Every structure is written in structure tokens, then in C-alpha cells.
């Protein structure tokens, strides 16, 4: 489904038809985009591979300025394809007490700290190009022909999320009716996240998606019982 088709479905399900007024078309699109971003964040469903030139004689590098859609690293390799292995700080210190300033012919290990700080070992003495595979955030769906990069079978989950998004303005029991759509979205994200997790493990990637089943949904999927209809919210 493209964005136009998804927006039409959202509008129909909110009894708005072809010319939405109470739930404006621009807000339907915002809802679809927020759901799309959240789905990708939960599942790490989009991956990109791009070259990165490591500046010489420097250990730590921020990657957000290099890759604006960055989330986490999945795999780093040299230009020839050799894997640059992930290491914890303690592993690097155990390997080489001088690792912070150790120069070398080529980067063989990396450590990842914070949201985008990569430390390399050894520091290349000249610019070195590495190939970075990373989980990326999605580009917004900018026009009606835009198609989300997630598998087609999960596109209806974005429709469900947009309905949940739009009804947040109403609150209480009206919003309670929309929580089943959010549940539907989370179930879809959990299923695809499990697939991506097993795939990433199989690929020997360095990061796997969050295990959604480990999050206690019980409070998220029902409103405070004193303020909303529990039967509807459940």
C-alpha cells in the first residue's frame, strides 16, 4: 500500500470518507509517519550499508553527522569485507592497555557507546574506509505515492496506528475504543521484530531488536479503570 491508499483507509474507518474534516488529511499523514517511525524503531526493520571514512589518528567518532538516519550499528567491515569485531571497553583494555592511542595499519575492532559514538581500535594512521551496516530510521512518507520500506503485510498496522494516533485528541472512552488498534499495531511489531531478531542473529549482526514481549503492556493498553470503560479498553 502507498501512503494515499493507507490514508484513505484511515479516513473510511473514522467515518470521514473522501473529504476528511474532523480528522484532517495532514494529521492522518502525521499519524501514518509516526506509526512508521515507531514500527521501525521497535523492529529495526530498515538496514542500510554505506561507506564511512575513518579520520586518521582519532579513536572516537560520532556517526549521527555522517548518517542522519542512524539508530544502531549492525555490522562494520573493512573495504575488503573483513569483519571489524565489536568489543566492550574492558575487552579493549584487556587486549591493549594503550588502545586509546594505539596506531595501526587498519581498524580491527570497534566499541559502541551512547547513541552514536564509535571508538575504533587501532587508530588508522591514514584515512581508512569502512563499510557500515546500520539500522536506520525511515524517511517520511512525503507524497501519496510513497510506500513504506517495511514488508507489505505490515502496512495495515500503520493504518491501525494512525487511527489510534488521531483519537488521542478525544481522550477517555472515545480513546479507549482506539486502544485495540494500538494493540494490533504492537502485535504486528512484535511479530516482525521476532523475525528481524532471528535474522540478525543468523547474520551475526551486533545488535538485535527489542523483545516487545518483555514489556508489560497491561497498563499501556487500558486506561485508568476509574476514568474509562474497562471492557472497551481491554
Amino acid at each position, binding site marked *: 500500500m502507498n501512503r494515499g491508499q493507507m490514508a484513505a483507509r484511515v479516513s473510511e474507518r473514522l467515518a470521514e470518507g473522501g473529504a476528511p474534516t474532523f480528522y484532517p488529511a495532514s494529521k492522518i499523514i502525521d499519524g501514518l509517519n509516526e506509526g512508521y517511525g515507531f514500527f521501525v524503531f521497535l523492529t529495526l526493520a530498515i538496514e542500510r550499508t554505506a561507506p564511512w571514512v575513518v579520520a586518521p589518528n582519532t579513536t572516537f567518532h560520532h556517526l549521527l553527522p555522517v548518517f542522519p538516519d542512524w539508530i544502531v550499528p549492525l555490522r562494520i567491515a573493512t573495504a575488503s569485507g573483513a569483519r571489524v569485531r565489536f568489543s566492550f571497553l574492558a575487552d579493549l583494555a584487556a587486549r591493549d592497555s594503550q588502545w586509546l592511542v594505539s596506531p595501526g595499519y587498519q581498524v580491527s575492532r570497534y566499541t559502541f557507546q551512547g547513541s552514536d559514538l564509535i571508538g575504533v581500535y587501532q587508530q588508522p594512521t591514514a584515512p581508512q574506509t569502512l563499510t557500515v551496516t546500520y539500522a536506520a530510521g525511515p524517511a517520511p512518507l512525503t507524497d501519496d505515492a510513497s510506500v513504506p520500506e517495511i514488508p507489505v503485510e505490515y502496512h495495515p498496522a500503520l493504518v491501525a496506528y494512525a487511527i489510534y494516533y488521531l483519537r488521542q485528541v478525544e481522550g*477517555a472512552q472515545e480513546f479507549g475504543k482506539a486502544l485495540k488498534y494500538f494493540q494490533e499495531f504492537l502485535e504486528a511489531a512484535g511479530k516482525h521484530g521476532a523475525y528481524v531478531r532471528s535474522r540478525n542473529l543468523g547474520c551475526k549482526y551486533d545488535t538485535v531488536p527489542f523483545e516487545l514481549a518483555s514489556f508489560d503492556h497491561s497498563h499501556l493498553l487500558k486506561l485508568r479503570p476509574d476514568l474509562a470503560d474497562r471492557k472497551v479498553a481491554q
Partner: protein
Amino acid sequence: MIDASVCLAAAVYRLGFGAQSEISAANSWVTETELYQWGDEAVKRLSREISLFINYSTSTMTQAYLATYTLSPRHVYTLLAAVVTTSESQILRPTTVRELYALDAAWPSTPGFPRRASLDAGPVGTITLYPLPTAAGYTVAQLEQEIPDDVSAAAPQVAVPAVLEPYVTYAMLAGARGKESEAAMPEMSDHFRQRLSLYEQVMRHLWGGGQ
């Protein structure tokens, strides 16, 4: 990189306003300043709960025979400390003041090349090196969690992955709907806080926990 002004724009409709300009109207039940404040508080919460804002700081230099150095005002916690010279580095072993006394009764005045660092030997907000560096000009490098700049209309940008933009939006929504006003929706504020909690768990999984 996220932009809090985009987060605020995303919250406008869900707060019941037709346009952002309505928030600026007199007698509006919530103001843009308040929304930025909730966004700022959410980012500050992340700086202590999630390892998001890690930076390699090299701004402190040793002075001869001076053991204690003031940490950056942005410092939250240290992951790794080292003394780095032009040719070598010494990773500093984290050591409590009790351990320093057990190691060397005269530790405050023992000179040498630093091998240990203590965050509780000096006043709060300082790092103490042991032994005392005998030379000036070594870099005290730290891999540290830092507090980002205050989030406001004048400085709306925060250096975190763009997928976290809704986190700040939900913080604004939770704050606004929880505020005592005619538009208060405590059940929605509660739900938005649950959304923040889900985001934080995913962040903790991807980037690690904070303090």
C-alpha cells in the same frame, strides 16, 4: 538529530488546537514555553536514565602536583578515564577513597604518573588522580555521559537519533494533559507516560541504561 519545534508541532493537534498559533493566544490553557519545558525535562531524564549522550571529553589538562580537577558542568557519570600524553595512555582504575587509604596512607601527596581515579576523594563534581601527576599538560580524557543543552524555542535541537522525536512529543503531551487546567485529561497523561516508558525500555536495550 531531533528538533523540539517539530515535536511541539506534532503535539498541537492532539492537544485540541486547530493551529499552533492558537497556543500563543491569550488565556490558552497551555503555552509553548511550558511545552518546551516538558520536552527539556524529558531530555534531562534521558541523560540520567539512558546512555544516550556519551562523549569523549579531552578538555581537562593536568597541572604539576595537583590531584583534583573539576568535572565539566555537563558531566553525569564516567565510563572510562585515562591520562593521555603525546605518546601513551594510562587507563585509570576507578578507586574509592577508602581503597586509596588502604593502598597508601599518604596517597594525597604521593607523586608519580597517575594510575587511578577517584570520584569520591574530592568534593562532588571533581575527579582525583592518584598518584599526583608530577608534570603539567597531560590530557585527562573521559568517556562520559553529558547533559545536553537546555531545550527551548531558541535552541530546539538535540543530538539523538531522529526516531526519538515522538519521545519528546509524548513528554509534551503527558505534561500538558496532566497539568491542572480545564483541558486536563489525567487518563491520557497516564497513557502518554506509559508510551514514554516503552520508549525508554527500547532505548535501554539499544543503547544501555544510565546511572
